[in-house]
């Protein structure tokens, strides 16, 4: 059984192994990324306009990926004399994207509370054109003599 103490900080991880330190940094970044799932990312800060309070809402899609690698090797020294040179290196990279789209606004006034949807005409028009194009293509294919 090992008496080794668990690694608690990134500094400890760097001292033990640079590779695991990179993983530690990635894990921390991922934890921050996961915090995007919080309710505050779907609801914006309330806006007060006269007697009315407006709360914007949005759909958030966040995608993220990381990769890391390292290696080491040894070879004959340039100075000769049968000595061996040793080297090691590592690297990493990542990318991500966050997409946000307004969905609706919550309007609270002395008359009551209501939810007003936000209509994205461009998206609807694109979907309608796709549907129309698909249906026209099918109709054309059906009527075409064989």
């Amino acid at each position, binding site marked *: 059984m*090992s008496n080794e103490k668990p690694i608690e900080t990134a500094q400890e991880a760097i001292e033990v192994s640079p590779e695991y330190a990179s993983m530690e940094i990635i894990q921390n970044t991922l*934890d921050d990324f996961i915090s995007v799932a919080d309710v505050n990312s779907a609801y914006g800060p309330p806006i007060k306009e006269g007697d009315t309070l407006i709360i914007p809402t949005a759909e958030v899609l966040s995608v993220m990926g990381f990769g890391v690698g390292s290696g080491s090797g040894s070879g004959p020294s340039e100075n000769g004399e049968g000595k061996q040179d040793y080297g090691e290196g590592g690297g990493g990279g990542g990318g991500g994207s966050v997409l946000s789209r307004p969905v609706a606004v919550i309007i609270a006034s002395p008359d009551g509370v209501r939810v007003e949807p936000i209509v994205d005409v461009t*998206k609807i028009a694109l979907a309608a054109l796709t549907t129309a194009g698909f249906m026209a293509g099918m109709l054309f294919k059906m009527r075409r003599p064989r």
Partner: protein
Amino acid sequence: MNPNRLNHPRKNKMSTLIRSETRTGQSISTHGFKLTPFSRSLTLRIPGINGGLIWNRPASVLVQAEDGQEYVLPVIDFTRQVQWALYGLALGAGLLFLLFSIKNKSNRR
């Protein structure tokens, strides 16, 4: 080095592949109403890859009036509903055309 030394409690949280959650936000009081927002999130993690996807969207708002009346207002994504309806229409029409063309072929024979 023993890799097990890196077994943080956080690792269990990260290893979940698909997780769907409903979260409650901080209540806002205005004009005698107390509004409590709810959001629904979907977290997807691909095993072996340091990354993932989070889809977070507003779900509903709980409205509590001063007189004790309570009701839930759903936050409807109108644009998404229309998009799905149109794609459904295209799929339905496609299936109908396919059935029609199969019937025509069998009639010709």
